[in-house]
């Protein structure tokens, strides 16, 4: 006999009609839910997310179907759990489609049956295995929610309802199959390796009872499927649709680039004050969140117990959108309550102040940990900065400490109260002069490298030591370089991240205008914030330059032998741990060059902090936070400094002036300044290198 089975075995005419008839209700509900979401997204501003479609499709398949962004080293348990649930469910769904094709298309229309023989046996094997995958995945999810209870996971009714529904669907499938096998007991029944032992048990029961239980369970399974489908669009189960759409239509521009407000002088609304001020893609972003909490795992505000939790901010916007959308147009599972399942009760609320509080907006360090770890590319930082822009530009509301920063930027072109004429004062402490671009251009001298010093490197006394060390390294290596001197201006990064887009644009345009006057091969900077702005934000305003971070250039100079490190150097003996600056690591993916530099230091061991590379905890200084008071929760810089101290290292290697400032304070704050120090990698290298005779001064400063 050829292995196969009768589809719709033991199902009467009522069932045969019912299975199609009952499709109508869940399809109406599903279509309504999806259409209402798209209807809401369309309320947003236009944004082109339909370019590079082939790349988008490949990326979306890699990151979702193949789980490229879901199974990660930093969240392996959750990733494997999701893989099992997803593939278990998808395989069972494909199995259902195969049966439909056989029963409703190929046999009645073509008279052709493929659901038999080896195909059938393989099908049974795979379907039974898929059921196990699904059940194991669901049990792992239950274990995580109820036993492991990680801080970033908050269980909502919807989470458990869905898991229970998935489990029930799989169990029902085994039972229905078991009852049929108990009556028919095919020769090939053992291929259904889970249902078969159940069938052996059922076989001992009267056939009539088996048939009756089969019918009852078949109906129950069919109705459960329809309930599941109907519930689909109002639960987080919608995420295969919203998340895939979000990943497909993800940002393709560099992560570190914040969009400009075009024609800012003419814009009717500055920043985001209402739901309609977000772009449609941002609204879709908020709907794609399935509250997995990965954005929280490495978020400095979550770790230090501040009001801002990126996941909740996204869900609050999403819930607000659902409220505005009216009838249960949202997701059932918003944290503790059924907020998104309510009638439209919130249109009167203001977005800022009513839905999102100001402390939430101002706590963000824009470190990008949330975006880096979100499996579906939700962009939290642009949402936050959008609302900050409105607060700053339209409402004139921002932390008082920032007022001086804005004033100084306007008057002095830097966040500090130093006149531009003092920008190059640090050069007076060098043994050899540093030429300025204007002089070199006037004398017709070619310049290979433009050293963009940055505001902290120019004016802040601690960071000047880094600047001096780097300048001496460049001089020792014979690099042909020059600085802008008093012509250098802030790139606008702090103003942009704080939300003063108007000022940020002025600063950026001024800097590009200055840079474009000169000819050079590349720019080097010790500031990842300047690096990010020059690399990612200047091109769209006509500033196209090759820019490297000083860690990259130093690494290159060591590699090429232009800098020789002294194996007998007494400056560095001991262990160093390296902190990844967010704007170098997460935003620009440079993790290796600084490590390579540290590892090349003679007599120095390197130890990693538990949170490193893309999981590194922010120093707390980005997003303008360095200029603001930190009044809520624990101090981020102290938390990170303590992590560094706990490694047992004696030195923390920094590669960013913002991090330097934050850690100087952080180490003092935890009372470890006599046993632990922070140094920039340029200082570490300069202290350890073989110096030319005129630089025999010892330490970097």
């Amino acid at each position, binding site marked *: 006999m050829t292995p196969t089975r009768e589809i719709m075995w033991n199902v009467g005419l009522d069932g045969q009609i019912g299975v199609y008839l009952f499709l109508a209700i869940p399809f109406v509900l599903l279509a309504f839910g999806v259409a209402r979401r798209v209807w809401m997204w369309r309320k947003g501003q236009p944004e082109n997310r339909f370019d590079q479609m082939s790349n988008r499709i490949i990326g979306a398949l890699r990151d979702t179907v193949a789980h490229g962004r879901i199974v990660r080293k930093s969240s392996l348990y959750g990733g494997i759990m999701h893989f099992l649930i997803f593939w278990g469910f998808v395989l069972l769904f494909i199995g259902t489609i195969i049966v439909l094709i056989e029963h409703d298309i190929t046999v009645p229309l073509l008279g052709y049956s493929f659901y038999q023989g080896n195909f059938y046996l393989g099908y049974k094997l795979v379907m039974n295995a898929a059921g196990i995958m699904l059940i194991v995945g669901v049990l792992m999810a239950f274990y995580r929610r109820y036993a492991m209870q990680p801080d970033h996971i908050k269980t909502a009714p919807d989470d458990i309802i869905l898991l*229970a529904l998935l489990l029930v669907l799989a169990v029902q499938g085994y039972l229905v199959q078991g009852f049929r096998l108990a009556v028919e007991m095919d020769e090939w029944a053992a291929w259904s390796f889970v249902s078969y032992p159940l069938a052996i048990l059922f076989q001992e029961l009267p056939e009539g009872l088996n048939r009756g239980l089969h019918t009852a369970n078949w109906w129950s399974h069919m109705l459960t499927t329809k309930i599941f489908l109907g519930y689909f669009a109002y639960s987080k189960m919608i995420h295969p649709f919203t998340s895939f759409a979000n990943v497909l239509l993800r940002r393709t521009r560099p992560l570190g680039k914040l969009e400009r407000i075009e024609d800012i002088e003419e814009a009717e609304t500055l920043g985001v004050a209402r739901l309609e001020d977000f772009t449609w893609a941002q609204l879709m972003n908020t709907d794609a969140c399935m509250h997995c909490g990965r954005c929280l795992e490495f978020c400095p505000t979550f770790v230090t117990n501040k009001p801002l939790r990126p996941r909740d901010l996204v869900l609050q916007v999403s819930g607000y959108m659902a409220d505005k959308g009216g009838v249960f147009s949202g997701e059932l599972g918003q944290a503790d309550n059924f907020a998104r399942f309510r009638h439209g009760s919130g249109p009167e609320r203001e977005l800022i102040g009513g*839905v999102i509080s100001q402390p939430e907006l101002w706590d963000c360090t824009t470190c990008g940990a949330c975006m880096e770890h979100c499996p579906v590319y939700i962009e939290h930082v642009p949402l936050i900065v959008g609302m900050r822009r409105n607060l700053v530009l339209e409402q004139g509301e921002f932390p008082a400490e920032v007022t001086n920063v804005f004033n100084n930027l306007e008057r002095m072109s830097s966040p500090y109260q130093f006149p531009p004429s003092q920008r190059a004062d640090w050069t007076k402490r060098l043994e050899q002069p540093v030429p300025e671009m204007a002089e070199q251009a006037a004398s017709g001298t070619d310049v290979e490298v433009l050293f963009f010093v940055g505001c902290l490197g120019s004016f802040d006394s601690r960071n000047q030591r880094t600047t001096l060390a780097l300048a001496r390294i460049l001089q020792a290596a014979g690099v042909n370089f020059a600085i802008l001197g008093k012509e250098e201006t802030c790139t606008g990064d702090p103003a942009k991240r704080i939300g003063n887009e108007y000022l940020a644009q002025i600063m950026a345009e001024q800097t590009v205008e200055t840079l474009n006057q000169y000819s050079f091969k590349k720019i080097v900077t010790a500031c990842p914030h300047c690096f990010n702005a020059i690399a990612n934000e200047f091109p769209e305003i006509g500033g196209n330059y090759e820019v490297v971070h000083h860690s990259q250039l130093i690494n290159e100079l060591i590699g090429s032998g232009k800098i020789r490190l002294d194996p007998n150097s007494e400056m560095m003996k001991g262990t160093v741990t390296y902190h990844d600056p967010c704007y170098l690591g997460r935003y620009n993916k440079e993790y290796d060059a600084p490590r390579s530099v540290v590892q090349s230091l003679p007599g120095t061991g390197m130890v990693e902090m538990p949170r490193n590379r893309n999981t590194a905890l922010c120093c707390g200084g980005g997003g303008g936070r360095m200029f603001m008071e930190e009044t809520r929760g624990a101090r981020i810089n102290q938390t990170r400094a303590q992590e560094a101290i706990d490694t047992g290292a004696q030195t923390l290697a920094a590669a960013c002036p913002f991090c330097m400032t934050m850690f100087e304070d952080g180490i003092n704050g935890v009372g470890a300044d006599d046993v632990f120090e922070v140094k920039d990698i340029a200082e570490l290298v300069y202290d350890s290198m073989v110096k030319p005779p005129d630089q025999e001064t010892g330490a970097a400063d």
Partner: protein
Amino acid sequence: MASLATIWGRATANRKVSLPGCLAFVALGVLIIAVGEVQDWGWTRIVGATVISIGSIAAGALIGWSDPVRPRITYLISSWGKAIVAILTLIIVGPMLIALVVAFGGLIVGGAEADTGLMLIGVLIAVLLLGITLVTVASAFSLAMRGLWRSRPDEAGETNGRHSA
């Protein structure tokens, strides 16, 4: 040729006409399937299912794409939430729980010629499935009940969609 958006715009503008049209489509699909099954015409299943799907998806999309109307259905669902959850739970898990319990009857009445090893594996599977079903469904049921209590229309407005996470 009119763009899809234009056609959709017209359809939504004439929702009063379009919606009954969609529902008529669903009814037609049901009729096709019913007649086909009675007459034993296999081909009508896919045709009827397609017609039902198109009609119901169009109806849902049409309502979803229109401006929100007075949310009476949500009030209704919220008011009857507990009863709905209880009934659905019974439909979903009642038959399977009976089946899993009855499975143990097979062990008791099992004949001498039954394969004991396989039966024991069957019992093990049945116990496992029964256990995990009871635990998961009980958790979901209690959470749904609690969630529904919190989402009652008269209380929901006060929470403003904020939560304690």
